[in-house]
């Protein structure tokens, strides 16, 4: 199976543990990922606020390189990168004129037909069927699956199932032996990029998420987005100060949770890199 792989900046910068855990479970399950050659920044939140052409051209270049590499599918684990690539594919795909002008900027014809896989698409399709036999340490805990916004919205473009109450992470966590709680904050905003400029907003919004998960008895929060992870994990101090309340609730990537269940060494999964220590008895 030839699955392309676009890491983006966060997998190498702020969230290496996400990358480590993706690689670890893929090698444990015998899935090989082929990195898109000479990839560049997806533009993320900054580009589309400043320059529309740039915000379209950056992801278009990534897609063009994936096509040149002969990749029919590209796994994009970072939710922000995934969202940008999908949006751009949608926007350019529907507009011939735009295709021409983007081709001109890229200095090569726009080829954007690769299927873009979110981490959840990938886990659901390629990993879930392999899990049952390989689980070594079932995660017998109550957990809360938190999806955030970028994996489900805009619903008509991403084609997310049950966008107000997504289920795919819940299913995987149940397969791993965990009990996924039913809660209402699965897709609420964590504060996202305001993390740096207005930490207070993040403290309030992410605080609500943590509070509800804790209130419902979850022992950990499972995420699939580097932004969500850093807000819930790195900003924990600010949240606790803001709410005047301590939360003993680690935040894990879904790939880390799968890795643990597969019996992979926590260090290899990057679990030691978190601000909120992950209780390894989990």
């Amino acid at each position: 199976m030839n699955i392309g792989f676009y890491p983006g900046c966060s997998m190498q910068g702020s969230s290496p543990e996400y990358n480590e855990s993706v690689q670890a479970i893929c090698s444990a399950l015998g899935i090989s990922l082929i990195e898109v050659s000479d990839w560049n920044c997806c533009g993320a939140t900054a580009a589309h606020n400043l320059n529309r052409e740039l915000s379209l051209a950056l992801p278009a270049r990534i897609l063009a390189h994936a096509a040149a590499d002969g990749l029919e599918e590209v796994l994009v684990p970072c939710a922000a990168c995934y969202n940008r690539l999908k949006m751009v594919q949608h926007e350019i795909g529907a507009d011939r004129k735009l295709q021409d002008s983007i081709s001109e900027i890229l200095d090569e014809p726009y080829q954007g037909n690769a299927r873009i896989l979110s981490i959840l698409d990938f886990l659901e399709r390629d990993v879930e069927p392999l899990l049952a036999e390989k689980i070594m340490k079932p995660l017998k805990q109550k957990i809360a699956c938190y999806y955030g916004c970028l994996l489900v919205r805009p619903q008509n473009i991403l084609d997310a199932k049950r966008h107000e109450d997504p289920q795919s992470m819940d299913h995987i966590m149940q397969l791993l032996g965990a009990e996924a709680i039913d809660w209402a904050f699965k897709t609420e905003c964590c504060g996202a990029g305001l993390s740096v400029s207005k930490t207070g907003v993040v403290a309030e919004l992410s605080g609500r998420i943590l509070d509800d998960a804790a209130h419902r008895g979850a022992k950990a929060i499972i995420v699939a987005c580097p932004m969500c992870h850093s807000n819930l994990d790195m900003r924990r101090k600010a949240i606790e100060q803001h709410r005047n309340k301590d939360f003993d609730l680690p935040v894990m990537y879904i790939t880390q949770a799968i890795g643990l269940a597969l019996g992979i060494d926590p260090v290899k999964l990057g679990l030691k890199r978190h601000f909120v220590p992950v209780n390894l008895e989990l």
Partner: protein
Amino acid sequence: MARIGVFVCHCGENISATVECDKVAQAAAGFPGVVHSIDYKYMCSDPGQNMIREAIREKNLTGVVVASCSPRMHEPTFRQACSEAGLNPFLCEMANLREHCSWVHEKGEATTKKAIDLVRMMVEKVKRNQPLYPIRVPVTKTALVVGGGIAGIQAALDIANGGNKVIMVEREPSIGGHMSQLSETFPTLDCSQCILTPRMVEVAQHPNITLYTYAELIGLDGFIGNFKAKIRKKAKSVDEKICTGCALCTTKCPQKKIPSEFNEGLGKRTAIYVPFPQAVPNKPVIDKDHCTYYKTGKCKICEKVCPAQAIRFDQPDEIVEVAVGAVVIATGFTIHQTGFFPEYGYGRYPDVLTGLQFERLASASGPTLGEIRRPSDGKIPETIVFISCAGSRDPAKGIEYCSKICCMYIAKHAMLYQHKVHHGKSYVFYMDIRAGGKMYEEFVRRAITEDQVNYVRGRVSKIYERDGKLIVKGVDTLMGAEAVEIEADMVVLATAGIANPGAEELAQTLHVSYDGHHFFSEAHPKLRPVETNTAGIFLAGACQALKDIPESVAQASGAAGKVNILFSKSELTREPLIAVVNRSAPPEYSTCVGCFLCQPACPYQAIEKEEIKDRSGKVIKTVARVNPGLCQGCGTCVAFCRSKSIDIQGYTHEQVLAEVMAVLEND
């Protein structure tokens, strides 16, 4: 030889101001076949008409052209005048000198010349006109009413009281429809059942009404005055003639946990059941999908306990065919269920209800006997939130139209809640309050001022459950778009009203048109609101568009009036401007080759296959035939016919070609 009379009208000065009418008359006198040509100030006046009548008699005219205003204005007038003088009315044509010439062009040579051309066109046309006679169609004075809700009931009673027969078909085991589910009605707070049930009984007892419940219309053929309807009477598994309606069977049935449709799933029913105590007819049916005997072959408890021995497990479905002259469609509507709304929990919170469910809670005959109690734990809600436009007026989330009834019933719900739970708090989230109607605005005001219902202008983005409370997150746009969070015990969604799931199929069965939302289309949105495009089929109630009770009743009475007009004569006459397939002597019989390209082109299913047989009964040729009862005269088939075998009376090939040739005739 043609003997045509031309009558040029001045229309006071309306025509003569820009057209030299005398010159037009002079020119027309020179056209081949014209034997009489005059101009006069007011052709439509009594002296004017007399000139036409006299000329017809004296000059023995074979055709008349009146050159005056638009035929859409006075064609009937002049045709009537011709007919009075013994000339077939369809031998009279009008040249439109006023709307299409004198009023739209400046005075001058070109304008008079155009007027002459227009007259020449009509002279050439009328020479080729044939006398036509109105089509007479017999009328079966029985109406079929499909649907037994308030609209169907009203239509049936009005038709029946007009002295005509009615056959009513209702899908459910009882008539009554949605109105029978309602608690009180706005704006008077009358008890719905109290005003409806007497009507239901009247339907059942009316000598002119035949009632088929638990039955469906499965086919309709024929045309206005002469329909044949096929009805499937589903097996009730109970012999209605013997059953006394004691309902003992329903108390003994072991299947007791089937969600009651009448109670919108808030109550339970048995497999042999009467939907509600006031049902008409008040006799049970067996729901085969849930009955233990039908599922496992064992049980038959109802049969054992029935004192009248009326249970018939082997009763088959019955197909009845009835002849009817008109059809009233009154199949009503349905609503989106709570599961339609992801942001309000995908239907998984038992205390998030639809408006109809709330009606059942508030109804004295409902599962809680009229007490407002939470379905989840039976507690009385201290705080209740109503959300209007759930799905309505929002193409992104549901439908773009306004469901029309919700603003009023929400005000009623909030009022009923406040009357029943005095210390309770109620909130209504709304976009706009649409309370157009007699005493409607006053009613909403009363809810706000007297019953202290809190109206919040804004939408609700999410509902979720926390510690047994429903957290309603919304916004108050009149308070600076401030976020509002209410901890509610119950939420009622005024979910969008939509067409019944079977509406599209029914429309196809009946050959009536329907809109993108599967509501049936009226023939004209303003002037023919109760007719469909298919002659003889009428609409009543919410199957055409969402309506409240008074509007449904009004439309039903309108439809019944139309039916009674249709039934007032034993024959109906129609204009003969319809298509015909030519026929000739053997061995040709017709130039029609039987390709039937015309058949799919016809919007009215008016093209039939006709077999021409020899004396021994052997089929020689199959040709098309136009059913004169169904044909509306559009002529689409004419343009489709490759062998020019269909023509349309009044607009024949010969006539229109003559017109075109006359326009282009070199001067």
